[in-house]
């Protein structure tokens, strides 16, 4: 059965065919489509894979670990920065190990198409000392996902599958294999493994270290790593390229197009196959290291004193930042290409913007009017569609760092004496990581106004369900925000005067206040109407 699938969908199909019992995820570009594919597949009758969205990446990974404890296979998906949120269970799950297979898909975003940074998740994989798999194409994404579960159960470790945006969001044909059934319920009977008291943890950690040699051996014999030469000519001293994951495609594209006498070592598994790599390096006087992301392996292979035969991102043969492309590989391999056409000067940038009719717009109009009364005011912002309020014509927010930081940064600024201390946070971001910060503010009585721009969905990533919809008033009251300082408004033009008044009152209040600006995202509403 062949299907045209996004890399993300190939992973999803691979996980389903590997017999997962659940996927746990919080949306994040470019990982969202994995879970969405599984959710769509579960609409058919008789499907039993649990797939609802989690509140954040940490809750997702812990739940998946619990499913693994119970003996079943589970999948976790997140974008790269999501792994920062899930870092605690991530690091400790490598110490406990797993029971049922556990695969953690992390989608990196080199060039920051939709992200705050371009961190390389392979660093985390090495940090946790677990196997990392990095497919080069959609077919491998499918096969390596299936393999990840086998490897996880064999090594009794979580396995990371790392994909970049370009693979996650690119389609190609994928050939499916025979699906495997789910594992039966079979809770772990191990005792010490799961109780990370120091005495147990030391033993577990030693076992993790002892497994490393076996992991390297698996890499050495992995069918996903190979040496390839485009031309058959036996020439000596040709250039070698060590290409990791998707970088292999760019190298091969160029080598084929220009008939380059270059030999490529493709690597898709970590820890590195040490002998394979060493043999390859010894064979070549000039070597290019092509990695999508940070120069993780380049740094390792070059060593502290620097091996000058190794070219790559560190010596400027390839750019230090941003995603790779065929053009960059061509240049790095010394191909003279004609200068491409320039983009004509008449072309203007077309940045994304808030939709017409979006409630965030009306909120920012009201907020800007109120804030204008304060000299040099600042509004702390967060991540979501409403981040676009930082751009003209609104220029309404002044920070965007990480999910939840609007509230906690505003609190710190309030503690430092900033008045008024105001922040805007989306509903999904609030439940993801805002609630704990609000509790801090309540406990500390920090004078702070939190505006929850509640569009009843996770809009930025395409309109997924939001964990707290309909309950924000109750959540804030439960945490201890005074009832009369939890105000709800509807951000519409016709309510402008009234909304301005509410905002003004709460900004002047010397305590914690919450304003819930509530109106459904127009895109989500449209989709719902279409479905109905």
């Amino acid at each position, binding site marked *: 059965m*062949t299907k*045209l699938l*996004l890399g993300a969908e190939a992973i999803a199909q691979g996980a389903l065919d590997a017999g997962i019992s659940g996927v746990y995820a919080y949306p994040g*570009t*470019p990982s*969202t*489509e994995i879970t969405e594919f599984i959710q769509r597949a579960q609409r058919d009758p008789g499907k039993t894979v649990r797939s609802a969205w989690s509140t954040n990446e940490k809750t997702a990974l812990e739940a998946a670990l619990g499913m693994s404890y119970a003996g079943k296979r589970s999948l976790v998906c997140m974008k790269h920065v999501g792994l920062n949120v899930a870092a605690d269970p991530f690091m400790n799950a490598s110490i406990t190990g797993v029971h049922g297979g556990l695969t953690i898909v992390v989608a990196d975003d080199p060039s920051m*198409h*939709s992200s705050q940074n371009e961190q390389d998740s392979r660093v985390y994989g090495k940090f946790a000392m677990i196997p990392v798999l990095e497919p080069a194409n959609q077919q491998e994404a499918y096969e390596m996902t299936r393999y990840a579960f086998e490897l996880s159960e064999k090594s009794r470790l979580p396995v990371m599958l790392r994909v970049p945006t*370009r*693979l996650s*969001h*690119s*389609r*190609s*044909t994928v050939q499916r294999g025979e699906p495997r059934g789910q594992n039966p319920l079979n809770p772990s009977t191990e005792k010490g493994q799961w109780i990370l008291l120091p005495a147990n943890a030391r033993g577990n950690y030693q076992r993790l270290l002892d497994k490393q040699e076996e992991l390297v051996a698996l890499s050495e014999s992995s069918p996903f790593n190979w040496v390839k030469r485009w031309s058959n000519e036996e020439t000596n001293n040709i250039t070698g390229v060590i290409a990791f994951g*998707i970088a*292999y*495609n*760019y190298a*091969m*594209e*160029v080598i*084929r*197009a220009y008939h380059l006498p270059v030999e490529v070592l493709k690597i898709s598994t970590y820890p590195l196959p040490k002998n394979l790599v060493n043999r390859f390096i010894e064979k070549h006087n000039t070597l290019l290291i092509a990695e999508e992301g940070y120069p993780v392996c380049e740094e390792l292979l070059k060593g502290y004193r620097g091996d000058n035969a190794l070219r790559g991102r560190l010596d400027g043969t390839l750019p230090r930042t941003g995603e790779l*492309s*065929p*053009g960059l590989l*061509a240049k790095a391999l010394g191909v003279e*290409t*004609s200068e*491409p*056409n*320039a*983009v*004509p000067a*008449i*072309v*203007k*940038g*077309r*940045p*994304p*913007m*808030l*939709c017409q009719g979006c409630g965030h717009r009306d909120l920012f109009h009201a907020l800007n009017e109120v804030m204008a009364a304060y000299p040099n005011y600042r509004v702390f912002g967060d991540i979501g*569609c409403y981040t*676009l309020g930082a751009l003209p014509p609104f220029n309404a927010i002044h920070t965007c760092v990480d999910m939840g930081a609007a509230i906690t940064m505003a609190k710190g600024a309030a503690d430092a004496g900033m008045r008024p201390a105001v922040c805007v946070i989306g509903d999904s971001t609030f439940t993801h990581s805002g609630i704990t910060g609000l509790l801090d503010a309540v406990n500390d009585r920090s004078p702070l106004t939190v505006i929850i721009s509640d569009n009843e969905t996770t809009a*930025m*990533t*395409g309109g997924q369900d939001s964990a707290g919809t309909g309950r924000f008033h109750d959540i804030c009251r439960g945490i201890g925000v005074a009832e009369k300082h939890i105000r709800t408004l509807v951000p519409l033009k016709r309510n402008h005067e009234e909304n301005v008044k509410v905002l003004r009152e709460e900004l002047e209040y010397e305590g914690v206040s919450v304003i819930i600006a509530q109106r459904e995202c127009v895109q989500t509403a449209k989709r719902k109407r279409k479905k109905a």
Partner: protein
Amino acid sequence: MNKNIIIAGVGGQGILTIAAIIDLAAMKLGLHVKQAEVHGMSQRGGAVESHLRLSSEEIFSDLIPLGKADLILSIEPMEALRYLPFLAPDGVIVAATEPIENIGNYPDREKVLETIRQSAQHLLVEAEPLAREAGSARAGNVVMLGAASPYLGISAGQMEGAIARFFGRKGDEVVEMNINAFRLGRAQAIKKDETNQ
């Protein structure tokens, strides 16, 4: 057979629909397909593009190399020019003439069209009236697919088959409307070809 196609437009214009229809036709012919898309932030009214590669050989890169696109198919005139660095020296631009002016500094429309004319072989199509004629103002993307169809290396019959399969779930009326839109767009290309001869 080897075709590199950039499909361009503004978020919400339906460029992925065009790509999906070409994919269907190409797969029926047993061609290899790779199609890189833009998801996420830019879809919110920003510039979006898809790199579509068809080949009878294995395709390595998901991205089209600079200077190697045979065709830029754009549903918006200024967006066609944004991807000019990808266009091959003998490549073709097929673009709709109706601008989406959702930015404050949108350039003069006539100058945009003139720049396209000077940049490459081109076919400029007023898509909206044709889409209306076909039965829906929203079928502009399929009109443009028709206009670009002589450059795809896939026959009109194959393309119409793919349109029928793509819209099949939505009923005969929708299929027929889109096939009409496709034919009206294609007629523009044929007309241009005849006047050139």
